[in-house]
C-alpha cells in the first residue's frame, strides 16, 4: 500500500497540471476544473491496480479524465446547473494589458465552435500535451482518426480566424 501511495503521489506531481488544464478547457473556470480533476484522480486511484500496461500511464489517466469530464457534465445537466465561462478574471491576471488577449479569445471561440470529437483532440494535444498515440488510447480510436480530427479542427480554427480578420 505504501508503494502505491508513493507511486500515486509521484504520478500526481507529474500529471496534475496537465489534467487541470484539460479539465479547464471544458468548463473554463478553475473551481470546476479542480472538482473534475479530483474526481479523475479518485477514479484513477481506485483503478490503479487495474492498469493493463497496454499504453502509458498518462494515456490511461487521460482516458479516465475524458470519461470523468463527460460524466461530470452529465451530472451537472441532470442537476440543472449551467456551466458558465468565468475565467476572464483569471485570464486578466495572467496576461494584464496584453494586446493579444483578443486574439487568444478569438482562438478559444473557434475551439468552442468545434464539435466534441475535434475539441477533445485539440484539448488533449495542446492542454495536456499528449502524443497521437496517447490521444488515440485515451479516446479509444485509431491514430489515423486522431490525425484527421486534429487536421479538421485546425482547418476550422483557421477559417474562424480568417473570417474574424476579414471582418476586422
Amino acid at each position, binding site marked *: 500500500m505504501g508503494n502505491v501511495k508513493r507511486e500515486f*503521489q509521484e504520478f500526481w506531481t507529474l500529471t496534475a497540471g496537465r489534467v*487541470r*488544464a484539460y479539465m*479547464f478547457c471544458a468548463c473554463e473556470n478553475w473551481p470546476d476544473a*479542480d472538482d473534475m480533476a479530483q474526481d479523475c484522480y479518485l477514479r484513477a486511484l481506485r483503478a490503479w491496480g487495474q492498469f493493463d500496461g497496454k499504453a502509458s500511464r498518462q494515456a490511461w489517466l487521460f482516458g479516465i479524465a475524458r470519461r470523468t469530464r463527460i460524466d461530470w457534465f452529465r451530472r451537472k445537466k441532470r442537476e440543472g446547473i449551467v456551466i458558465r465561462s468565468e475565467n476572464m478574471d483569471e485570464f486578466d491576471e495572467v496576461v494584464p494589458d496584453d494586446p493579444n488577449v483578443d*486574439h487568444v479569445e478569438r482562438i478559444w471561440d473557434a475551439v468552442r465552435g468545434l464539435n466534441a470529437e475535434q475539441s477533445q483532440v485539440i484539448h488533449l494535444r495542446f*492542454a495536456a500535451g499528449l*502524443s497521437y498515440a496517447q490521444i488515440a488510447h485515451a479516446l479509444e480510436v485509431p491514430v489515423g482518426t486522431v*490525425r484527421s480530427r486534429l487536421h479538421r479542427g485546425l*482547418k476550422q480554427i483557421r477559417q474562424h480566424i480568417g473570417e474574424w480578420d476579414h471582418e476586422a
Partner: protein
Amino acid sequence: MKRDMIERLAIDSASGELNEDAEALFQFYLSGNPQAKQWAEDVRSVYDQTEAAIQTKTILAGDQKAAPPMIRVKRVNWLPVARWAAAIIFGTIIGLTAGRWKATDKTNKMAVQEPDLNQMSVETIADLKEKYVGTFWGDKMLAFVDNTSRHQHEAPLRDIRSWDTYRQYIKEKHHE
C-alpha cells in the same frame, strides 16, 4: 502532393510525430516547392497560435497550490459498529420480552379495593350495616347501602315483569 496532404504532414511535423527520415524528406520537398511551403507554413501558424492560446489560459494549471489529492482510503472498523448493533438488538429483545409479560397491566393504575355494592350479598350488606351503625358515617353509609341494595334487587324484577308482560301480550294476541 495535394494541399491536404501537405497540411497533414505539416501538423505531424509540428507535433513531432514524424520520424527523422520522414521529417528530412518533408523538409526537402518543401524546399523545392514554394507553394507547398506556403501551405505548410500557413497551417503551422494556426497550429502554433492555437497552442499558444490554449496554453495562455491554462498556464495557471501548473500553479496549483492545493495539496496533492492523496486519498487515504479509510477502512471501516466494523467491530464497534457490530458491538453497538448487538447491544441495541439485545436491548430491544429484552424490552419486547418484558413488554409481553407485562402487557396486561398497561394502564399502570393503582389497584384500589372498592366494594362492588351491586354484587354484594345480603350478608355483606348486613355486615356493613352492623359495622357502621352508631359511627360518624353511619347514617350516610346505611342510606347508601340501602339505596344500592334496593336498586340491585328491584332492577331484575322490573325487567322480568316487563318481559312477562310482553309475553303475556303476545300470547293473548295469538289466541285472538
